């Protein structure tokens, strides 16, 4: 199986307010089609790790590979192109652009990539929305829909450019159990039907247990990896 994401000896320090070694020698791999979760207590460094893996945070030592290509040390513009093309991101708070309609929110990353015509992008966006069962909301303003719906729109947006990996930072942290379940099922379906790789940081043990395996973190180190399969 191909490696989608690989971290090698990643170390990170916070310098403010005082020097703090937040990530210590993190190394792991995620293979194509895997659904992994990272768990750990607050302050264990799991979110920090995720933002490094997402290429948004560049202040670390070590090496990060995406699709076997080194991304450490690339310029900010190159990294934003990589994010645009290869990484889908889902946040705890849904973070849609509230002035735009649902379908426009979904289309935005594809428009930025500009590989397809407007019609094709719109078609893709409607298809993603249909897949997530919210195509009826397409023309609604993003500020007018419920939390669960927002999170599904955010997932559709993360998928619009057919990324190599979908990352989630507590994607169900702000949802009730019904919507959490819903989101999990969507993720599962994406893995099984589309062969998508997923990496999700979560507090939710029930959620984590249903993923392929859990990477357990404590005090900035990976302390264990338990398979659920």
């Amino acid at each position: 199986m191909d490696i989608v994401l690989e971290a090698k000896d990643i170390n990170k320090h916070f310098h403010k307010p005082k020097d703090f070694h937040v990530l210590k020698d993190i190394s792991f791999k995620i293979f194509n089609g895997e659904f992994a979760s990272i768990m750990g207590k607050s302050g264990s460094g799991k979110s920090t790790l995720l933002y490094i893996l997402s290429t948004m945070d560049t202040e670390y030592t070590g090496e990060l590979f995406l699709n076997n290509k080194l991304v450490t040390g690339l310029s900010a513009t190159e990294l934003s192109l990589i994010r645009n093309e290869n990484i889908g991101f889902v946040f705890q708070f849904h973070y849609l652009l509230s002035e735009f309609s649902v379908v426009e929110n979904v289309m935005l990353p594809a428009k930025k990539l500009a590989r397809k015509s407007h019609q094709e992008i719109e078609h893709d966006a409607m298809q993603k929305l249909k897949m997530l069962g919210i195509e009826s909301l397409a023309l609604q303003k993003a500020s007018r829909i419920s939390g669960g719906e927002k999170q599904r729109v955010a997932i559709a947006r993360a998928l619009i450019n057919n990324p190599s990996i979908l990352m989630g930072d507590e994607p169900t942290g702000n949802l009730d159990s019904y919507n959490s379940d819903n989101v999990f099922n969507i993720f599962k379906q994406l893995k099984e039907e589309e062969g998508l790789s997923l990496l999700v940081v979560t507090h939710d043990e029930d959620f984590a247990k249903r993923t392929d395996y859990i990477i357990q973190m404590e005090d900035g180190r990976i302390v264990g990896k338990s398979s659920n399969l």
Partner: protein
Amino acid sequence: MNWPVILNIAKTHLLTKMKSTATAALGVTFGIGAYITMVSFMTGLNNMLDDLVLNQTPHIHLYNEIEPTIDQPVSLYEQFNNSVQMISSIKPKNGQKKIHNALPILNLLKQMDEVKGATAQVRAQIFYLSGSIELSGNLIGVDIMEETRLSNMRDYIIEGSPEALNTMDNGILLGSGLASKMSLRIGDRVQISTAQGAVFPLKIVGIYQSGVADIDNSQSYCNLKTVQRILGEAQNYITDINIKLNNIENAPILAKGFEKQFDVTATDINEANAQFETGTNIRNLITYAVSITLLIVAGFGIYNILNMLIYEKMKDIAILKATGFSGKDVQYIFMSQAMIIGIVGGVLGLVLGFILSVLIDGVPFKTEALPTMTTYPVDFSVMYYVIGIVFALISTFIAGWLPSIKAKHIDPVKIIRGT
């Protein structure tokens, strides 16, 4: 760079914040509108004042200054060279009013490339006779058609026409003050007498009004030949030559040259109206100072509004960056908002300025100095509109630059993690 997406986001931001956008754009509109109005009106006034002076003053004026000879006879006598010479009651030389070789000089001047035209004049001190009253004044003999070509003398002839003088040998263009003093009208006859006592009747073919009371109360115009005849002088008797140049900037240099070349006194227009330029410059300075102040205020308005917008849109900026928009993209989103405000506000400002200028242009304004003027003078030069829009774009660019740089450097991780 993906401009359609960037402009679409900018547009959406602007439209959802319509009030702020309108406030910012109106700031620019008023700044530019005020600039256009002020500069058009001020320049119109300046030009009017320029015309007032420039059209009545030749660029270079040649004449013979009345002065005593520098080399008095005694200094020519060698034996007195080592003595102190004292001469009392020196008188100016006789017959000096006339410019020597005036006709050849005139021909030479007319052939020069720098010279647009040169006209000969004969000035004579005369008396206007009205019953037993004698009014002193001057009579100027002119080549009237040449004068009307080179200056806007025609504007100052409020009754009659220069052509009438040209065809009438013993015609006179009487000063308006003189006409009302002596109750004379076109078609009447006026008697004048020279200092020597000879009396001539002249027919009034026009009334002349310069707007300067002193001139209108004493000065009249006749044909060159008529004045020469009145004075009993030959056709080469010419006291003044007025020169109009193609380029007024050359006046001082050429005046110096003529002085040496023709052995006459030459005054140029800058010398004659030195204080005049200063007034023009100061008015321009005030116009630009006020306009720039207005635009700086408008600029601060834009800066403020964009800054607020960026704080409001922190999360949007973070999400755009997380989904693959680069710092540059985000910067351009906010820069284009500033520029859209600048363009819309600027164009509206040009329109506002134009409307106000038209309104001012329609306000009635009469002055004796310029009989042709009926409304306030406004200068509708395209140049001011170009400067105005460039001003608007530059000031909004600077006002948008700083906030957009801030947006460019926002760290999405910090925003998303809420730290």
